[in-house]
């Protein structure tokens, strides 16, 4: 891969965890993309911000709790995590409620960031 040009990939997460499989599938693709030495950024908007809520305990629904994986992303050099401010506020959430450190941006700044990407996937 050393001669290949790294592209800027952005993964936009808009769905809550567990109710559908989108959040987990997004994480899988993120890790694969990072393994190919691409530049990876994650964005959490709308119900996607629930994916990062601290304190998930999934024993009662007999489903894998994949939220610790977000903490491991930096080991894969995935360090750009963005959350839309408006989405947090609509859900009564604050930055301190989240399981990882993120950059909170207003919608307009997030849109500008999206415009700079080579590839955008939404889940």
């Amino acid at each position, binding site marked *: 891969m050393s001669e290949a040009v790294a592209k800027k990939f952005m993964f936009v997460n808009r769905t809550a965890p*567990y109710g559908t499989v989108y959040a987990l599938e997004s994480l899988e693709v993120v890790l694969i993309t990072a393994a190919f030495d691409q530049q990876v950024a994650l964005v959490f908007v709308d119900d996607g911000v629930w994916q990062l*809520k601290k304190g998930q305990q999934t024993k009662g629904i007999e489903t894998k709790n994949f939220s610790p994986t977000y903490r491991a992303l930096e080991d894969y050099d995935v360090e750009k995590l963005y959350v839309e401010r408006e989405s947090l506020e609509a859900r009564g959430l604050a930055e301190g409620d989240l399981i990882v450190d993120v950059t909170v941006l207003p919608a307009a700044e997030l849109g500008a960031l999206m415009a700079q990407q080579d590839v955008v996937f939404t889940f």
Partner: protein
Amino acid sequence: MLNIVNKSPLDRNGLDACLRIAAPGALLLIEDGVYAAVRGTSVEARVTAALSRFRVYALLPDLEARAIADRVIDGVTTIGYEGFVDLVAEHNACQSWL
């Protein structure tokens, strides 16, 4: 009638349809529907207003999975799977607002 909502009210309008149309009775929030039971969201006022017409329940395992069991709106009753079964048995019919 036991009304059941399983989609997030911040993403889909199943809860709104239920609250607009359903006759007073019981409302059970399950799966992503439990986000309706959270304090401080843009949906809270609608749920609080509905408490005068509906007995509102939320499934605890689904709240715990989503890390929101500690911020449930006052007046919403949390129940386990046994309580879910009891509610189904108590009512003559169930309506799922998919």
